């Protein structure tokens, strides 16, 4: 296969490594080192897609991340296809398959292009003015608008590739691997600094790679040779990290910078292994940052400037020198500054015919005129291109003289045939990262662009990013920046190492801005595009202002300029320029839109890193977890924990299993893994005072060996946690908390100790996971405890309720707590976690004789509900006090102050008609209320809004009471014992239920 536009005497591509690829179903050949864009251009393909709104043909415009137009979909594997990929950034690999976007049925013939014919009726913001209905409302039109919008298509997923994030600290981070960046990194490293150098493309050298080797020399050698040597030296330095294919995408607070490395996108899927990292985020904390991110060229804005084949002059030069590709063979140049002239010269020297150089300026440097003459290039000064032709690629352009002052046209248009039009409107320093760092921009009239002004963070700009326009200055500035950065990072100053650089071609820009090239004829018929992706024309900007949108931010949003996937890298400066004319204000007064992170779009998967799938979040499990799994238990997530919920036997339903477990716990022996409960060791002579202040009840008299239940409140008086605390010694306590509350409670207690009560002699240490907890429940469990434990009374049942003792199991020390969350005879055996599974298995073994039944959290919830015990987070929701639970006995208002005490006295908090916890017994004992159902007064639902008296917090069918039971928070519930209320249900008539006490196990007369 031949590549008609390929040159064989220049470029970094490897001509010995041809690569086959396809675009739009057609097969092509490129070389290793190509981007998709350079390979397509080498094959004469310019048109690659359609624009967002008008579906106009779009071609390759730029040579890097600034290209707004050259977007394609890469890859046919539905799990690996990548939409909206920039052809000028996608490196070529063997077998690459690319397809055009936003066109149907084909790129050449696109039905959507009808929009372009109707463009006159679709100005900026047209959709705000219609589609309001009736008869047809927005929901009708939205379908069609959505279908027409969007660009590429989403992969099907899941993503087969791997990503990761890595953290790094460094003295100096250098963003940009051009001459200035290399010089900065080189100098900083020479100072002994820890350096990270990140270059966006596959090659270091930046602008040096976009010019002929001999154009820039250091010590009689091509400057790029010096640059490559510097990179080699840096790569050998263990304190330097040199990254290519890596973009600094986000400059965040405190000098934290995100880098995005495309580690494998240049490899074909077959070249990747399951271990390959596709992309990597480098999370860099830098003492100093050097921004050497270069400058972005902007196109000229003129009528019909959007045809494929109309490219940035600098990009044409880059394709020529970096890739050895002629973007066209009959080239026209359209410029308002010096730089594009070199593109003309280089094209001519490479064998292309340059049919014209059109310059809007009246006078240009004589050297340029001489060099053009030497090459027989026709030059038209003080002229402009006013129209172009060519359906899928430019075929000709109309050139006309500009009236003096450049405000109008004169004479008649002359048509010039061409297959390439390289334009340049000047260069804008790439200040995106600087702006993200929250420095302020300042307008530089010589550049007609913004450059870095006052810095905010520890950063400095160098080279073209700083508005510098010659290579020698860039080299010197980069070196100086590296030196200063190293010094500010605290490294000792060493001798500067900056070589002499000479450039053999004209440099400088000498731009004379012409933001809007005058239009020939009816302005309203012109199509001068500012944003080539979102189809924003100068007309749209004029219209937005005319319609009263004065702020540049409003105009951006109204016209969508700069809101495409390139975020207006080349469009924004032109837009500001056009607006300064429209508003008749200097550009600084027009202002700029915000430069937001990321500098360019970053893959979601890369940002998620390695923390996906199995590694998404921790799954905390108890020492007995393996046993539960072996029983094929059903589990539930409780915060980070995965707890066994129930243990269905073969053929048993979830409900049946829970019923069986609950029954067994009151008739035989049930055993529960309660290891997840929070545990805090409290020690110090002021421990009791401390407990008195953090719990609502009194702790002064709790004797060693005894336990007590307590509520903790927030200062707002609402319950935040509960648990049993045991007295180990007079100054030593073992506190327990809820599973989910453990960390929060410890944090709050430390807060009070460190901040409010530093005078208290109390230390806290969490021991939650040191202890595995086996909770035995049921009338027969004293016998089992007696069998297992030594060191307890002959009859463990004689241990007083709410007491604890040390004991041993096979010589392993344990703590045995005689406490109960079920109302049933119950013991909790605490053993060091490493023995947890052993103890559990031992209990199951010994328990066989008693027909022991393991039960999970669901039965535990049911059992405690039978007894009317509350669960914080189920009966409470952050709006409930102990008084609301009608547990006044646990609130000691007579003792001193405690957390939340004062809030209990607030006018609303002490209302007697607040929602209070009660039991509910349905009239039909078989009917189980829905948890979350609302309690209402009427037997039938009136029209909304229906007054709600309260809601059902817990509801079960009780196997022990052989009827349904429920707990509910009901207005004035305490005063309504025996009342019948109604509980609403979706799709059914309300269920009648009688209000009762909450302890369903208590003798019946109590609840009557």
């Amino acid at each position, binding site marked *: 296969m031949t590549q008609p536009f390929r040159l064989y005497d220049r470029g970094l591509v490897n001509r010995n490594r041809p690569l086959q690829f396809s675009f739009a179903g057609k097969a092509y050949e490129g070389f290793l080192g190509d981007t998709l864009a350079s390979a397509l251009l080498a094959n004469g393909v310019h048109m690659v897609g359609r624009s967002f709104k008008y579906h106009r043909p779009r071609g390759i415009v730029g040579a890097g991340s600034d290209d707004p137009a050259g977007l394609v979909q890469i890859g046919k594997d539905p799990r690996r296809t990548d939409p909206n990929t920039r052809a000028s950034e996608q490196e070529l690999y063997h077998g690459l398959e690319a397809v055009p976007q936003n066109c149907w049925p084909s790129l050449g013939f696109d039905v959507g292009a009808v929009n372009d014919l109707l463009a006159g009726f679709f100005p900026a913001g047209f959709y705000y003015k219609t589609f309001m209905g009736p008869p047809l409302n927005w929901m009708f039109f939205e379908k069609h608008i959505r279908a027409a919008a969007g660009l590429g298509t989403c992969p099907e997923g899941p993503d087969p590739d791997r990503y990761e994030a890595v953290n790094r600290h460094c003295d100096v981070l250098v963003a940009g691997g051009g001459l200035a960046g290399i010089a900065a990194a080189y100098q900083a490293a020479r100072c002994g600094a820890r350096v990270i150098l990140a270059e966006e493309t596959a090659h270091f050298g930046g602008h040096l790679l976009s010019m002929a080797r001999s154009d820039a020399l250091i010590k009689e050698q091509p400057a790029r040779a010096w640059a490559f040597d510097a990179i080699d030296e840096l790569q050998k330095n263990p304190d330097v990290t040199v990254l290519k294919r890596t973009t600094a995408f986000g400059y*965040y*607070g*405190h*000098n*934290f910078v995100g880098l995005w490395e495309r580690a494998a996108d240049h490899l074909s899927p077959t070249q990747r292994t399951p271990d390959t990292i596709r992309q990597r985020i480098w999370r860099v*904390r830098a003492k100093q940052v050097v921004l050497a991110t270069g400058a972005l060229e902007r196109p000229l804005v003129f009528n019909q400037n959007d045809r494929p084949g109309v490219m940035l002059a600098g990009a044409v030069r880059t394709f020529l020198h970096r890739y050895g590709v002629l973007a066209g063979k009959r080239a026209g140049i359209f410029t308002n500054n010096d730089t594009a002239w070199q593109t003309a010269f280089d094209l001519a020297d490479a064998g292309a015919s340059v049919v014209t150089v059109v310059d809007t300026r009246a006078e240009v440097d004589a050297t340029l005129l001489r060099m053009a003459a030497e090459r027989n290039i026709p030059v038209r000064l003080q002229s402009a291109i006013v129209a172009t032709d060519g359906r899928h690629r430019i075929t000709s352009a109309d050139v006309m003289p500009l009236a003096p002052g450049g405000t109008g046209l004169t004479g008649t248009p002359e048509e010039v045939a061409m297959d390439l039009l390289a334009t340049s409107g000047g260069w804008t320093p790439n200040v995106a990262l600087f*702006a993200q760092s*929250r*420095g*302020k*921009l*300042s*307008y530089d009239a010589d550049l007609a662009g*913004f450059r870095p*002004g*006052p810095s*905010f*963070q520890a950063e400095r700009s160098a080279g073209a990013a700083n508005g510098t326009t010659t290579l020698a200055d860039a080299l010197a500035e980069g070196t100086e920046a590296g030196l200063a950065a190293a010094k500010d990072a605290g490294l000792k100053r060493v001798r500067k190492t900056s070589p002499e650089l000479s450039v053999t071609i004209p440099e400088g820009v000498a731009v004379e801005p012409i933001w809007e090239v005058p239009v020939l004829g009816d302005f309203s018929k012109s199509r001068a595009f500012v944003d080539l992706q979102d189809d924003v024309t100068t007309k749209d900007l004029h219209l937005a202002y005319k319609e009263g949108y004065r702020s540049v*931010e409003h105009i951006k949003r109204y016209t969508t300029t700069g809101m495409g996937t390139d975020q207006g890298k080349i469009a924004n400066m032109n837009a500001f320029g056009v607006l300064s004319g429209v508003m008749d204000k200097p550009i*600084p007064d027009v*202002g*700029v839109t*915000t430069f937001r992170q990321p500098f360019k779009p970053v893959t979601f998967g890369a940002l998620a890193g390695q923390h996906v799938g199995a590694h998404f979040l921790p799954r905390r499990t108890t020492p007995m977890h393996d046993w539960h799994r072996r029983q094929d238990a059903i589990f539930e997530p409780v915060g980070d924990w995965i707890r066994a919920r129930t243990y269905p036997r073969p053929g048993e339903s979830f409900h049946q299993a829970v019923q069986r477990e609950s029954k067994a716990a009151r008739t035989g022996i049930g055993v529960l893994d309660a290891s997840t409960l929070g545990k805090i060791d409290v020690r110090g002579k002021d421990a009791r005072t401390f407990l008195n202040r953090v719990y609502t009840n009194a702790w002064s008299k709790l004797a060693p060996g005894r336990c007590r239940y307590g509520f903790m409140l927030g*200062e*707002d008086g609402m319950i935040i946690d509960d648990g049993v605390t045991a007295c180990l010694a007079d100054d030593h306590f073992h506190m327990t908390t809820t599973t989910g509350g453990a960390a929060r409670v410890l*944090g709050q207690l*430390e*807060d009070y100790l*460190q*901040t*409010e009560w*530093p005078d208290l002699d109390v230390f806290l240490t969490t021991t939650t996971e040191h202890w595995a907890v086996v909770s035995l429940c049921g009338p027969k469990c004293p016998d089992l405890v007696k069998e297992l434990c030594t060191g307890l009374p002959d009859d463990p049942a004689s241990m007083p309720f709410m007491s604890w003792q040390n004991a041993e199991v096979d010589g392993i020390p344990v703590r045995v707590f005689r406490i109960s969350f079920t109302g049933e005879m119950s013991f909790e055996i605490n053993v060091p976690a490493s023995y947890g599974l052993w103890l559990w298995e031992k209990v199951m073994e010994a328990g066989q004789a008693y027909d022991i039944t393991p039960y999970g959290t669901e039965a535990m919830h049911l059992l405690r509900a039978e007894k009317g015990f509350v669960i914080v987070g189920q009966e409470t929701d952050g709006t409930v006090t102990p008084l609301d639970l009608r547990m006044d006995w646990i609130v000691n208002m007579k003792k*001193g*102050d405690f957390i939340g*005490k*004062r*809030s209990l*006295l*607030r*006018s609303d908090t002490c209302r007697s008609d607040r929602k209070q916890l009660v039991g509910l017994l349905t009239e039909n004992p078989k009917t189980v209320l829905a948890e979350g159902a609302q309690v209402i007064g009427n037997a039938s639902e009136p029209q909304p809004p229906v007054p709600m008296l309260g809601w059902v917090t817990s509801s079960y069918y009780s196997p022990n009471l052989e009827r349904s039971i429920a707990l509910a928070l009901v207005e004035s519930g305490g005063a309504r014992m025996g009342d019948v209320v109604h509980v609403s249900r979706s799709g059914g008539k309300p269920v009648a239920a009688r209000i009762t006490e909450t302890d369903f196990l208590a003798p019946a007369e109590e609840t009557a």
Partner: protein
Amino acid sequence: MFVIPCPYCGERDQSEFTYAGEAHIARPEWDDAMTDEQWAEFVFMRSNPKGVYAERWVHTAGCGKFFNVIRNTATDEILAVYEIGSEPPKVAARLPATPSGEALGSGNDAVKVVASHEEVRS
């Protein structure tokens, strides 16, 4: 993500810390005469200033100690750290400056451009 200089462990990433709210809000001694309004001042009302602000952080993943930080909430610059119970030191800060209402370093988007290389008031 801030770099927070823990008084006990040195500079660490913010992810190791937990924010603990406004500093120097002393819990009132019990007083039967205290009104609901006075109590609400302690429980709910906050100064929430734009500018110099004394706040508390706790080094959750490190030493577990609470300490005070003075931060400029208009720019997120940390201006001082000091131990619980000690007096806040005097600090200088780039304060919000009208007419933009924003100090250099504020993320607020009111003014992003200076006309020339003029210094922005600090």
